[in-house]
């Protein structure tokens, strides 16, 4: 069958099962936008290419299927650089297709030319400039394979215009869908080494103070059920990192919640005092370990990761296991059973954990007097308690992100979507749109800060136009709150360039101008009715501007570069050292 490159590209996406593409056309990608009219693939027209990238990420987070974005050359391509870096850091499978100037013009500083393959080399799992229309099906097939297997990540495919333009002879190709993938340098290890798995089972059977340190890899590997089985079989408590919230139910008696810089006291301290850390799909991020030299000094380490480069990168493991988390955990469960020795008596340790939980719960000042601003944590608790249990929560980056992770109760995998590694402000609105597109039957709440919201709010126009009814709760404290918190604590309250104003812009009017329902909430009594109203609206996006207390800070906190032994619990509770 003779096709042109543009048709072949769309057909290749159809062959990969793509149901939706987020994008924005322009000169170099124009020929591909013609065959899209005749394709069953849904195209969502964004208002800024960064939105397309984050939507693809949100879609991938929520569904587990690769998100796809398509943009033009030059500025279109550079605008999607941030989502690529974000997806690289958080191992999100997305495929980004960029138009490129015609082959003959490459390297001539042509209009809207940018060497995007060069620009994105270090922030993609792989990228490729296509040099022949005949290669398009193979390159697209490889792109999806690479994005979704092993440690997932972003792949960029750059396609010169002449290869897709039916008026150019370079676009002629004979359609052929390869029946196998030939990548001699890419064979991810799935199965863990049996001897290492037996070693791990032995360490588990000897440990008196073990903790499972579950990371985002659990979710990528669809391993939440296996994790639960392992925890219940061994009776070992689980901390879930920022990227793993929901991978183990917060309601489970073995769940200790989030560790790290703004983790809870018990999660942080259990790791510090453990004698065995079972790291599953986690990467000893600096926000989790605090000062590395002082992190979990007595702990032996079992480290399971599909990416061999993670093993020993930060902390040398006693038992390194390269493999897919699900496959390895299932084998580990078998090995624990086959070893057939009772788990040691850990009642003292378990009692210690319970005592910490009782003594140092997450906490905020709930007192309210007439005229006070709302407490942001209270708004999140009310959202949590008045929305469906399987609501998907999407956040931006900053204080609101930490409070959301702390105060929501995540009992299902894939209900928490945020930008962890790169810390991309403005992530929430477009990622929520992408999540809602992938999971149209679920309630999707973006919990956003006022600073973040201003970065990508224009994608609510996309949401209105495309009838994607996401909901946005702005915790409006009129500040770049996390930066302000650091200036308060570490720069002697010298506030530099962090004030944003509560009512410039007017968020309610802005929301309405973008076709959303806009609300403003200032009094505690209005909180629940506003949330209920928002949850009842299903035909357009909703934005609630919650006016929250700008003085509120995120606690607990381990200051950057200090040891996890120095947990600052908050103004009333002091330091919980030991």
């Amino acid at each position, binding site marked *: 069958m003779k096709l042109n490159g543009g048709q072949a590209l769309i057909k290749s996406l159809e062959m990969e099962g793509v149901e939706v593409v987020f994008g924005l056309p322009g000169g170099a990608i124009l020929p591909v936008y013609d065959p899209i009219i005749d394709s069953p693939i849904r195209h969502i027209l964004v208002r800024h290419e960064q939105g397309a990238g984050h939507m693809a990420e949100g879609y991938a987070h929520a569904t587990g299927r690769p998100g796809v974005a398509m943009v033009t050359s030059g500025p279109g391509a550079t605008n999607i650089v941030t989502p690529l870096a974000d997806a690289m850091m958080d191992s999100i499978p997305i495929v980004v297709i960029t138009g490129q100037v015609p082959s003959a013009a490459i390297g001539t500083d042509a209009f809207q030319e940018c060497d995007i393959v060069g620009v994105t*080399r270090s922030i993609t799992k792989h990228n490729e*400039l296509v*040099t022949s229309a005949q290669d398009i099906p193979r390159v697209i097939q490889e792109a999806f394979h690479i994005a979704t297997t092993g440690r997932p990540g972003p792949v960029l495919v750059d396609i010169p215009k002449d290869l897709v333009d039916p008026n150019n002879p370079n676009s002629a190709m004979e359609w052929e869908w390869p029946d196998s993938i030939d*990548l001699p340098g890419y064979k991810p290890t799935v199965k863990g080494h049996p001897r290492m798995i037996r070693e791990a089972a032995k360490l588990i059977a000897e440990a008196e103070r073990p903790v499972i340190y579950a990371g985002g890899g659990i979710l990528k590997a669809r391993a939440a059920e296996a994790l639960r089985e392992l925890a219940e079989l061994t009776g070992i408590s689980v901390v879930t990192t920022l990227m793993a919230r929901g991978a183990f139910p917060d309601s489970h008696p073995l769940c200790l919640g989030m560790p790290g810089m703004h983790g809870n006291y018990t999660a942080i301290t259990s790791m510090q005092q453990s004698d065995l850390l079972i790291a599953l799909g986690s990467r000893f991020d600096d926000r989790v370990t605090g000062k590395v030299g002082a992190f979990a000094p007595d702990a032996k380490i079992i480290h399971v990761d599909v990416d061999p480069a993670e093993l020993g990168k930060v902390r040398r493991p006693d038992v390194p296991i390269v493999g897919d988390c699900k496959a390895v955990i299932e084998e580990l469960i078998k090995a624990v059973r086959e070893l057939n020795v009772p788990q040691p008596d850990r009642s003292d340790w378990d009692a210690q954990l319970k005592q910490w939980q009782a003594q140092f719960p997450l906490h905020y000042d709930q007192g309210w007097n007439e005229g006070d601003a709302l407490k942001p944590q209270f708004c999140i608790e009310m959202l949590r308690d008045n929305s469906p249990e399987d609501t998907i929560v999407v956040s931006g980056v900053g204080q609101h992100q930490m409070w959301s992770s702390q105060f929501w109760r995540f009992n299902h995998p894939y209900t928490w979507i945020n930008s962890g590694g790169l810390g991309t402000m403005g992530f929430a609105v477009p990622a929520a749109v992408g999540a809602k597109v992938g999971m149209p039957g679920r309630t999707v709440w973006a919990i956003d800060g006022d600073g973040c919201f201003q970065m990508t709010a224009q994608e609510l126009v996309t949401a209105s136009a495309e009838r994607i009814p996401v909901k946005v709760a702005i915790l409006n404290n009129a500040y770049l709150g996390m930066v302000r918190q650091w200036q308060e604590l570490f720069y002697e309250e010298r506030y530099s360039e962090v004030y944003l104003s509560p009512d410039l812009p007017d968020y309610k009017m802005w929301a309405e101008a973008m076709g959303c329902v806009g609300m403003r909430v200032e009094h505690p009594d209005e909180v629940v009715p506003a949330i209920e109203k928002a949850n009842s609206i299903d035909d357009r996006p909703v934005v609630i501007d919650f006016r929250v207390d700008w003085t509120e800070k995120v606690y607990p906190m381990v200051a950057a570069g200090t040891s996890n032994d120095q947990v600052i619990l908050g103004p009333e509770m002091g330091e919980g050292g030991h």
Partner: protein
Amino acid sequence: MPDKPRHHILSVLVENKAGVLARVSSLFARRGFNIYSLAVAPTDDEKFSRITIVVDVESSPLEQVTKQLFKLINVVKISELDPAHAVEREMMMITVNAEPGTRGQVIELVDVFQGRIVDVGHDQLTVELAGPPSKLDDFEDLMRAFGISALQRTGRVALPKLERTATKLRSLGKVG
């Protein structure tokens, strides 16, 4: 000179495709590691090239870079060669002043080092010399007395020694 403890040789088998060298070298650049020498050429199978990288860093950061290198889709195999258990060779071309009064001495040294004279001018010679990098260093030192007007070295290539045991210290091969 990188011949002392911090000198490592990586032999990297890659797919012979555009941009692969840039991917490999940028992983070193990102960490501020200077590549001391680099040699690239196709192998017996033209689908693959071998990149021989000599790099001057401590072992532990190098291990991390090696692992990162291995993540590149186009990288097929990496061997780190222990300089004590590898055969290293390099080639050099050098144009040296050789006026009639000193020409005889230059030619004598070229003979001692088993080099070849590949071009002759009125008062200069161009010499080709291949061998272990240290031999090239020695020759370069000796020629300096006569005056070097141009010098080009290829960067070293290396393969593991056959007759000794510990050939590959670390070898990352893709299973399958």
